[in-house]
């Protein structure tokens, strides 16, 4: 069904584009190709994974008239993560975990000086926090990738209608998706790990992905109002949509060794929130507060169950001014459940501390040291990356990523995937 959606929207976009091209007197086309490759050398000796992520993106942009244009990107991606993480998760990977073809930004748009209507696959980003996706919930994410991966690589485009109007220093945006899509998760997701499922006496797990709802059967709607005044940006939003993260239902346990089948389910939820970014002296403050209503979480005692609760999230962060080419950012976030069941697979409060120190060097080089720490389970990650723009089209990154904390923790369970890496991005544009 997911493929049907993709084909429908791609064909619709292409058909509209072809009509527009015929109508336009002299359309202007541009082509681009981006290759992004990464090789990981896992620091844990017994992880013999190949550690490769390759991505190729083809792009055509077309300006039919001053107002009417299109952007058509198709990406292919291969990621050895599923095989590399096999020992961590005890889930047999399939070819779908390895190689994918998917639309990135693939849309047509009509714009005037203060109005935009855009339809097709696209990414809509709300929120002010760096590296966290609390308000950036619209597009599904590839959560197999490290949390320090650039958000654009993690985000997956979603077919939607996007209307935006500008007035003064404010804007109002309405979006409607044709059908929901969901986060791509490591084999056992965020809240359920091999360790906390061991209580069920199952040695191997199989995950059934959630079926995609029929086109237009479960549309999602959202709106955002944004205004800039007195040196700050203030926005408020509301959206009703399918939770991008799943809860799980145990559908069967059978065989020797015992295999448990878990089915991913997605609850219809609504999110409302406010975001703020403001200059304070030479500092930049960033804050988010949101409420996710009607979320469903897993419980685990003798069996696997569920419990409902609203979730309140607050994020506050600060960027320092540049000092000797250093910029430091500090961010704190907290997620709290309004109703708490002691059998839940997550604690009532989940707070995260994250820091980022960047240093600009000569020749447009830079390095960045980032950390994230979860006090609720003492897990975390540290990441160092050196960025070296090699030429007008090539950028090379060298980095190291280390997970730490108990193996049962959200970050610590990725300990075996700590790695040195080299990443190369090449942009070719006509």
């Amino acid at each position, binding site marked *: 069904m997911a493929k049907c959606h993709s084909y429908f929207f791609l064909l619709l976009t292409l058909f509209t584009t072809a009509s527009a091209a015929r109508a336009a007197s002299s359309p202007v086309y541009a082509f681009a190709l981006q290759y992004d490759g990464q090789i990981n050398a896992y620091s844990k000796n017994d992880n013999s994974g190949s550690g490769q992520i390759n991505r190729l993106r083809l792009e055509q942009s077309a300006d039919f008239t001053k107002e009417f244009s299109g952007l058509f990107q198709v990406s292919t991606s291969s990621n050895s993560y599923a095989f590399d993480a096999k020992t961590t998760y005890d889930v047999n990977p399939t070819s779908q975990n390895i190689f994918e073809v998917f639309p990135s930004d693939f849309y047509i748009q009509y*714009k005037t*000086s*203060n109005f*935009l209507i855009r339809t097709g696959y696209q*990414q*809509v*980003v*709300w*929120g002010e926090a760096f590296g966290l996706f609390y308000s950036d919930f619209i597009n599904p994410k590839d959560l197999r990738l490290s949390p320090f991966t*650039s*958000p*654009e690589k993690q*985000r997956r485009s979603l077919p939607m209608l996007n209307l*935006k109007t*500008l007035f*003064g*220093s*404010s*804007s109002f*945006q309405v979006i409607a998706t044709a059908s929901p899509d969901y986060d791509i998760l490591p084999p056992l997701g965020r809240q359920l790990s091999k360790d906390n499922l061991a209580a069920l006496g199952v040695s191997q797990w199989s995950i059934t992905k959630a079926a995609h709802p029929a086109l237009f059967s479960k549309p999602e709607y959202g709106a955002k109002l*944004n205004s*800039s005044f007195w*040196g700050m*940006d203030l926005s408020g939003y509301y959206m009703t949509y399918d939770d991008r993260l799943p809860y799980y239902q145990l559908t069967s346990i059978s065989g020797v060794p015992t295999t448990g089948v878990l089915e991913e389910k997605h609850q219809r939820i609504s999110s409302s929130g406010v975001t703020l*970014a*403001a*200059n304070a*002296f*030479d*500092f*930049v403050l*960033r804050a988010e507060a949101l409420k996710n209503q009607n979320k469903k979480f897993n419980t685990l005692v003798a069996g696997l169950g569920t419990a409902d609760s609203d979730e309140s999230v607050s994020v506050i962060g600060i*960027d320092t*001014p*540049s000092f000797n*080419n250093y*910029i430091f950012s500090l961010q704190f976030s907290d997620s709290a459940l309004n109703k708490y069941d002691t059998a839940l697979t997550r604690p009532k409060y989940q707070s995260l501390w994250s820091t980022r120190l960047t240093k*600009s060097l*000569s*020749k*447009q080089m830079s390095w960045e040291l980032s950390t994230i720490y979860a006090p609720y389970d003492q897990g975390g990650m540290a990441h160092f990356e050196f960025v070296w*723009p090699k*030429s*007008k*089209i*090539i*950028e090379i990154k060298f980095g190291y990523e280390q997970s730490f904390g108990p193996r049962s923790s959200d970050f610590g369970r990725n300990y075996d995937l700590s790695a040195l890496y080299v990443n190369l*991005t090449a*942009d*070719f*544009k006509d």
Partner: protein
Amino acid sequence: MAFTPSEILKKSDEKRGLTNSFSVQVQVDVTEKNKKSQSAFKVSNKDVNTALVEQFEPERSKGRKILMTGYDMWIFTPNIKRPVRISLEQKLTGEVANGDIARTNFSEDYTPEIQSEETVGPIKAWKLNLKSKDKKTTYSRIELWVSQKDFAPIKATFFALSGKPLKTAEFLDFKLIEGLTRSTKMIIRNFLAKDEVSVLTYSKFKKESFSDSLFNKDHMDF
């Protein structure tokens, strides 16, 4: 005829850019430790407080935009896909701060006083001391040498809040543009590392009127 420091500064500003709504292309050639790199930008200035900078070189940075309205500044990149609020003094490239390109009108941001009269090469000049009117400006103080003959800016030294000199600039290649001779080249040098040099070359000055919406931060992803 005696000129007040403010009049001198205003006339000098006119020699560095058009005063009303205009666009200009800026090429920035950076030399750092004998390694060269190049960037290019289109700058759309609505007025002295409002500018949009769009980068079109190098390829890997194409589509990056910086918007300035008053002392507010945002950056947009095709990767991040949303405008992110930043500060004026963050570096754009090489020795060039965002404010160096997007906010070039000294008389709006600084209070001038004549510090002395000096000779720079063969040119008699006023040495102006410009004190920041607001802590949000790119620099806390600037020393600017202005020709007494035609108000052309000659050179400048930029200072941090600590009083430490950060960089120097030279204004060169004056050409007749829209009825007035204006500088089309600025050379910025790191004060401590003199071999770190950024050359800004201005071309395609064009009087242009822009819609107010172009300078709304949410227009950056249109």
